[in-house]
């Protein structure tokens, strides 16, 4: 206990450039998270629609794809892509990466990290969105079709706006999980917060005093807790407003780590 509350160990965090070094690493996490979130949401919606297709030749392979990727550990996928992707892919990524991207995302290694995050999370999100779409009463679609809407119109104007709105809480909790999962990219040597925490604590103080590993990682944990709490607070506020306006009720999804969080506040 004495060690934990020893002021000099905490002061170490703010001495020199340590704090800035860590916070810049956290920015990399947030950038990777933001990019992966956007791509996973798009991919998830596409996969959900494929899986709901009336053509079995489309829906069955889409279902297998989703079930395989969401049942594998994310870190497993990431390591596999890191070790197994051909060199030429990461070189190609470095060539095509847009110039406005942050510097940290331009390295070829980021491709494996991003691909893994998107493969895994788009599969999980597809399952969430599918559950939302299927939770709608059949009458909704039948009414839309009876009004003369095409399949595409009924999806875009009737089914998706209602079905996806029900899944906002589940989607947000999955995005929070995604945010936590960006720490895994440290394993494939991308210099984000956790990696920087390890780099920082592998050196010693001047005079041979050891770096305070415990304090550094508690600080890192606090950063994530704060950002994730803000995210869930924000989404809850949006959700309550939306619910008042539209009267939607959130639904649960099977196989989601954090589904309780999604429905707990609704009860």
């Amino acid at each position: 206990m004495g060690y934990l509350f020893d002021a000099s160990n905490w002061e170490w965090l703010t001495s020199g450039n340590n704090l800035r070094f860590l916070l810049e690493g956290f920015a990399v996490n947030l950038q990777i998270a933001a990019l992966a979130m956007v791509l996973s949401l798009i991919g998830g919606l596409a996969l959900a629609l494929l899986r709901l297709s009336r053509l079995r030749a489309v829906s069955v392979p889409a279902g297998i794809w989703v079930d395989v990727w969401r049942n594998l550990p994310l870190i497993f996928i990431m390591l596999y892509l890191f070790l197994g992707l051909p060199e030429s892919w990461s070189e190609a990524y470095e060539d095509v990466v847009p110039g406005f991207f942050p510097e940290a995302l331009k390295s070829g290694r980021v491709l494996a990290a991003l691909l893994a995050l998107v493969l895994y999370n788009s599969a999980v999100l597809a399952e969430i969105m599918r559950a939302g779409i299927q939770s709608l009463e059949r009458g909704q679609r039948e009414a839309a079709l009876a009004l003369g809407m095409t399949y595409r119109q009924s999806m875009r104007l009737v089914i998706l706006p209602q079905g996806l709105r029900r899944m906002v809480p589940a989607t947000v909790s999955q995005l929070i999980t995604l945010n936590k999962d960006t720490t895994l990219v440290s394993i494939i040597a991308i210099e984000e917060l956790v990696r920087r925490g390890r780099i920082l604590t592998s050196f010693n103080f001047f005079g041979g005093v050891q770096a305070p590993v415990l304090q550094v990682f508690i600080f890192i944990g606090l950063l994530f807790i704060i950002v994730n709490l803000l995210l869930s607070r924000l989404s809850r506020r949006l959700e309550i407003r939306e619910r008042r306006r539209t009267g939607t009720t959130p639904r649960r999804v099977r196989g989601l780590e954090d589904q309780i969080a999604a429905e707990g506040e609704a009860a």
Partner: protein
Amino acid sequence: MNELWEVLERHLPEFSSGFSVTVRLVAISFVIAMVVGTLVAALRVAPIKWVQRVGGVYVETFRNIPLLVLLFISFAGLRRAGIPVNAWVAGTASLGLYTAAYVAEALRSGVFAVSKGQIEASLSLGLTYRQTLAKIVLPQAFRTVIPHLGSLVIAMIKNSAIIGVSLLAIPDLLKEARIVDSRTFETHEAFFWAAVGYLLLTGMATFGFRYLERRFAIRR
């Protein structure tokens, strides 16, 4: 195709030992998660405000911290602080305490699914708060949270791979796949069989919990 079977045949001992390490990690962590999760859930539904708040802080902390960071705190962090934790203790405690937050939330939602009238009836029959919780509420809550627990076990199977890759020297399935890969450079084959192992585990958990759910379903 032949290549695949050959790799499995040659490295079966590595894969099966990794598989059993993963199973053991999940099993021990699950016990920790259930015990701690039940305690935290009890705190969260306690009739005293500040006790509820303690449970709430636990849940918000462990649900929002990345598991990898928790592992670094509990292993490297504690060791540097002079507490000689063992890798297995740090790994299973981290995964268990992390999942306990979700278990607590699942149980709490289960407790709220038990109708208020039953609790009032039990209290008016002269059962104490503790007896009501243990005999009336929790048995029913456990039943309604079976599907949630299934999701959590699947999440634990996947999260257990993080223990093996962080600095803890625990040779789980993913670690063994990497060992095979580093020795033979048969990356695709090694990871293919590890994937089969993980899908087997998550598949068994899915079907097992679906069975339990049907078995213990209550008709209301």
